């Protein structure tokens, strides 16, 4: 699975908060950080991902926005947003087509799925 991590937690009012670009962690996987062309949003609210399943095209970005008080993550074998605080966001760009099940590392009942479609 090839993806790019674009971690940009933002607080209320648009102020940049806890800006921890973690793409460097994945340099060993041949991944680098750069802005993606399109961003989809998955809302985290009341301990659920919405939509639970999201379909994107190869090379597009998903941003998780946490509305809960409790911190959450979007985590799978191969990627991890890290902790997303209340009103924070974390983004990943997916480069490899496929279906990826993920969960919150802190709250295992929270699950979601990403479908990455190939560009023809």
């Amino acid at each position, binding site marked *: 699975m090839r993806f790019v991590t674009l971690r940009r937690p933002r607080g209320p009012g648009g102020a940049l908060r806890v800006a921890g670009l973690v793409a460097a962690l994945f340099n060993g996987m041949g991944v680098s950080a750069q802005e993606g062309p399109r961003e989809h949003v998955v809302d985290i609210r009341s301990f659920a991902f919405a939509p639970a399943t999201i379909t994107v095209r190869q090379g597009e970005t998903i941003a998780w926005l946490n509305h809960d008080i409790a911190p959450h993550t979007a985590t799978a074998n191969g990627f991890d947003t890290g902790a997303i605080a*209340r009103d924070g966001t974390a983004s990943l760009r997916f480069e490899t087509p496929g279906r990826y099940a993920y969960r919150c590392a*802190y709250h295992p009942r929270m699950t979601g799925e990403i479908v990455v479609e190939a560009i023809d």
Partner: protein
Amino acid sequence: MPRTTTIAATALVLALTNAPARSAETLNDLEIAHAAYTAGSIDIRYAHLAMALSQDETVRDFAATMIRDHAAVNDAAGALVAKLEVTPKDNALSRALVEGAAAKLAELRALEGVAFDCAYAMNELGYHQVVNQTVEGDFIPNATVPELKSLLAEALVTFKAHEEHAARMVAALPCGS
């Protein structure tokens, strides 16, 4: 936070502490805020004990989540208190919760291994069940400050997730019937 409301705290106190039966407590908004914050702080203390004593990955993951989530809720409560420029008020329910927690912590410290894990897990399940009933049935209906009511409602979502998580933890442990 002006109005005084009547809170039926007896069930909470009896369930969470070794204190004798109490009559219904009268709690205002500031006292509700104090009791809710205290309940969260107590669960953080239980979790720190679990992190110190348990070797079970399921228990340790749950405890880490309790520390993380209750700290986040209490941080939000602290921010609200600062915004409103008020001071939560200590009260009989908060004091009874603290006394009961001290007894429970002493009980847990005397255990080890699976006995500790099961006692911690079952206490967490019971604690969240009763706290959630109290927050939903008493605190939220009786809170008069909209921001406090809203924060309690948001916190309840978190606490209910904890209750479910605790039930799964209990089921995953070899605690018997």
